[in-house]
């Protein structure tokens, strides 16, 4: 039965975030420590929790590798659809109907309301188009930036160390 295991993951194959999410996904049954590995690699170390079953311990590495593949796909899908999702949510939030309107209730709108709603949707669509037309998003506080983008590519380095 394997106890502590260590897996090297190439940053060329997987983004740092992908590795983090995959590691988090298996954190229910194991303690996880991510650290720098060889150049261009992250070292993921796992120690099964005391109550983890023998089956879980034996399959932990495969589980993490499977989560890595899944997470890579999730990340690609999320990246490819970010604007589409934001557009749909914006459209939902900007709809000029009452709270709690059920799906399909639009049929009851008057022609004037229809016109007003169409104009509003067109306006939102124009705004989104303008905001996303090849421009950087406004982010003065750097909220959307990752740790690495803000502080460099060595997140585990102790900056106070002399």
């Amino acid at each position: 039965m394997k106890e502590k295991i260590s897996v090297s993951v190439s940053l060329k194959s997987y983004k740092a975030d992908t590795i983090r999410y995959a590691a988090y996904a298996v954190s229910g049954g194991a303690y996880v420590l991510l650290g720098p590995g060889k150049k261009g690699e992250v070292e993921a170390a796992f120690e099964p929790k005391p109550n983890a079953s023998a089956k879980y311990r034996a399959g932990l590495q495969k589980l993490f590798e499977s989560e890595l593949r899944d997470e890579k796909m999730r990340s690609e899908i999320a990246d490819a659809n970010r604007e589409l999702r934001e557009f749909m949510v914006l459209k939902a939030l900007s709809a000029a109907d009452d709270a709690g309107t059920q799906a399909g209730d639009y049929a009851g709108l008057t022609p004037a309301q229809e016109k007003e709603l169409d104009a509003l949707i067109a306006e939102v669509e124009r705004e989104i188009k303008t905001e996303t037309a090849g421009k950087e998003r406004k982010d003065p506080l750097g909220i959307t930036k990752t740790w690495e983008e803000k502080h460099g590519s060595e997140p585990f380095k102790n900056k106070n160390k002399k």
Partner: protein
Amino acid sequence: MAQNLLKIKTKNSVAQTNPPHFYWREVDGAYLISNDSGCHAWLDAAAFKRFSAGTLREKDKAFEELSSKGFIRDRLDFADLAAKWKSKNSHLSCGPGLHIFVMTLRCDHKCLYCQSGAISLSAKGADMKWPAAKKSVDFAFQTTAPGLTIEFQGGEPLLNWAVLKKTVSYARKKEKLSGKRLNLGLVSNFSRMTEGYARFLLENEVSLCTSLDGPADLHNRNRICSGGNAHVSVRKWLRYFTRRNTGQGAGYRIFKPSALLTVTKFSLGRAPEIIDEYAGLGLEDVFIRPLSPIGYAKNSWSAIGYTAADFVAFYKESLGYILKLNRKGAVIREKMAAMLLEKIIGFSDPGYLDMRCPCGAAVGQIAYNYNGDLYTCDEGRMAAWEGDDLFKIGNVFRDSYKKAVSCSTARSCVAASELHLQPACSRCAYSPYCGVCPVYNYEAQGSLWGNMPANERCAFMKGIFGILFSKLKNSKDREILQKWVKK
């Protein structure tokens, strides 16, 4: 709204290059996929592979279904998807609708799992006094929600009858002046109920809810009453209020009484008996709730607690039995299933505050303690009873409504229960229908965020969702479950 249907024809028969955003979960070799609007579909492994690779063709068996549910990128009906999203998340445009008044901390029961912090009957200074009650009503009516529910709880709220009665009358008056829709509810163990109390409550259209844990031996084992047999009073008054509901015609609405089932270790293996107890009393809903390690239950967990797997097995047996009764013509639902199905197949918001995103803490509900202290929710109040005031958001005498609902505690709970910020939830196929509880996380795992892969509540819910989605695949079960939503 045909003009809003964004439908781009493809030049060839390959319908998509990339799928739109979707969540997935593998279940026994098949794949459940879902999206932000709450649509879901099942795919076999081969179809899932084609779908996720963006090579699904129009002639594919699954194509039409996926297209109608927003899973084909160039066939997205944005108006429909946005309407479903909005309807399912309608709580986002409302303020707190549920206002829980703790009329007293005193109680004549000593339930094994009590999380309300009840204290003995003779305790002094544990009742809500009229000034606090009046101020609480005024505070509640400041909600930005178009309607509100005031729920009287305890301890046992009937032990503070004089103030309760005055509060009901005042709230009804306030309703007329404010123009806001008001629902009143009482959660009681019925041990102190009298004909006089009952008449007043019915005349003021107060809905009634109690706890019923099953047959007498089980109920009385869980819910120990200092004044005698707890089960007898519950049955007596459930029958009384059911009779009154059937009779109606009194010039005011009489609601059907309801009951809550809290599952302890002693309930396991007794699902049919418990359901029969509900059906025999004419109750149309069984609300199967797991224990939470909050309050008294936290300390007695080793005696009454169980694993998530135990609870899920109990839930599966119970739901199977309820569906069997339905097939025989009985009118009875499982309440949690009904509320989750409202989201899954009804695309609407059932108002289930524990299972929404963000959770109801402060923005969907407020708990008013007997002394006017305000908490994010009743569970938050209980954490305070255990000595930790983390979830306190103010006091009716000192703080404004705006200050309470927008304080840092409220904001922290909103952030922690926003599923898109939770690493595991933001990837889960059940997330369009789910919710996390910061108080549970805090009590069980030591932080508002918790750790979902190791979270027992998450395991409960994943188990329940798994059962529901698998039942929906069966056409006979689906037919019954659809009726539960329409009810």
